[in-house]
């Protein structure tokens, strides 16, 4: 066996009578192991004793006093160490603060962005809610036209150009082309295009719009149109000079009927207030300007007036 050969040759080379130190080595090793274990267990027991006493005794106990004194004695060394390592600590703090500041700034930027988005959404929802509440009040009020029901809907979008808005309700909600559209403030316009779930509403301020109207105080009939210029000012046209119309007069829809066809707009919907009345010798009609009640620039929610007998 290899082991045997090796041992033999080793003994030969060494010239034999080498005493094997087996017994002494084993004794030494077992003694060392014993010493190790004694040290370990002594330290463990000592630690446990320290924990027990430190934990059980009051803060004014002797072990705490020793600890406090020892801590006080260590304090100058700690202070000295702190002073020695202060430049390194400052350098670390600088980098750490820089890192923290950058991540904090990034976090705050993201948070700010989220909050702004939430604020905008909440603001929009609040405005829409207020507008819908107003519509609801209007719908329950005495001014609401008889024979109609309201399809309340929000303004879904506004084209960049043109006096139109798109509302989030359409044919599926019972809306048809030419239905009148109102808010609690007054007349908005009429439906000019219809899709299953959206509809286009042409505002009163569109040049193609024309509404049969009358002066609420004196009952002078005419036609509300939008002027050729920009802005939201309307004109109460085709009112003859013998009629009596004054400033601050309220103009409402006339709801007139031409032959078999009823007016597109139910009677009695407020349109606006007369702001100026002009007469010229050459013109048969007066020049009457009307300021609409509806703020066309901030429409949030509208009601489409649908005849009650119509199905969906």
């Amino acid at each position: 066996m290899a082991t045997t050969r090796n041992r033999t040759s080793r003994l030969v080379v060494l010239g034999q009578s080498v005493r094997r130190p087996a017994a002494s080595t084993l004794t030494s090793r077992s003694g060392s192991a014993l010493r190790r274990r004694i040290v370990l267990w002594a330290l463990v027991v000592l630690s446990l004793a320290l924990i027990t006493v430190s934990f059980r005794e009051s803060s004014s106990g002797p072990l705490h006093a020793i600890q406090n004194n020892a801590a006080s004695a260590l304090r100058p060394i700690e202070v000295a160490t702190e002073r020695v390592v202060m430049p390194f600590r400052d350098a670390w703090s600088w980098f750490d603060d820089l890192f923290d500041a950058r991540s904090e700034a990034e976090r705050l930027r993201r948070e700010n962005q989220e909050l702004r988005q939430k604020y905008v959404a909440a603001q929009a929802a609040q405005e829409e809610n207020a507008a819908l509440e107003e519509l609801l009040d209007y719908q329950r009020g005495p001014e609401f036209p008889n024979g109609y029901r309201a399809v309340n809907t929000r303004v879904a979008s506004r084209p960049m150009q043109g006096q139109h808005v798109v509302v989030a309700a359409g044919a599926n909600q019972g809306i048809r082309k030419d239905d009148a559209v109102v808010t609690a403030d007054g007349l908005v316009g009429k439906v000019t295009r219809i899709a299953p779930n959206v509809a286009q509403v042409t505002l009163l301020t569109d040049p193609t719009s024309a509404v049969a109207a009358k002066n609420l105080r004196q009952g002078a009939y005419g036609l509300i149109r939008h002027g050729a210029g920009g802005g939201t000012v309307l004109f109460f046209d085709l009112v003859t000079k013998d009629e009596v119309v004054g400033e601050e007069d309220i103009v409402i829809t006339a709801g007139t009927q031409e032959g078999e066809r009823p007016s597109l707009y139910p009677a009695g919907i407020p349109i606006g207030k007369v702001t100026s009345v002009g007469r010229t010798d050459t013109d048969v009609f007066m020049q009457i300007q009307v300021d609409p009640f509806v703020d066309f620039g901030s429409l949030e929610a509208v009601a489409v007036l649908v005849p009650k007998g119509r199905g969906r």
Partner: protein
Amino acid sequence: MTGADAAKAAALLFAVAIVQVSLLSAVSVGGGRPDLLLVTLVAVALLRGSVFGAVGGFLGGLVVDVATLETLGLTSLVLTVGGYWIGRYGETTGRDRSHAPYVSVAVVTVLYAVGAMLLHFLLGEEVSARLVLVQSLVPTIAFNLILTAPVYWLVKKLLRPVDWTDRAREVRLLG
């Protein structure tokens, strides 16, 4: 191993414990804190054996407990057991292995965190296992592993390695 070795190791561990409590306890990145005392203790234990490891752990832990006004003996107990265990590893399996310091530091960091957490728990203190074992453990291990190479090199320069193989050769001859 001489008395000079013991004095050098004691002075080293004392200095490191002071640096640990006065400087490194304030350093925190990603929830982890470098434990220079633990890394130094591992180096001392690997180079000088279990008795040095146990005694060094006890004294280093005592300094930390005193300086931080913690429950006396708490850190000592954990570091005593850790130092002893790493010392035994250095005396036997890990004596010739270059990766021994890294393995030892990683394992002892985990055992130290778990042991300290259990002791605090047994003393009725509020401890968060999530904080200790999930949030801070990995970065602390990473920190300690970064410290391992330079600390082990410095400790090796200070304390000449012991030739653990002397006794082992005799065992081979006898076998």
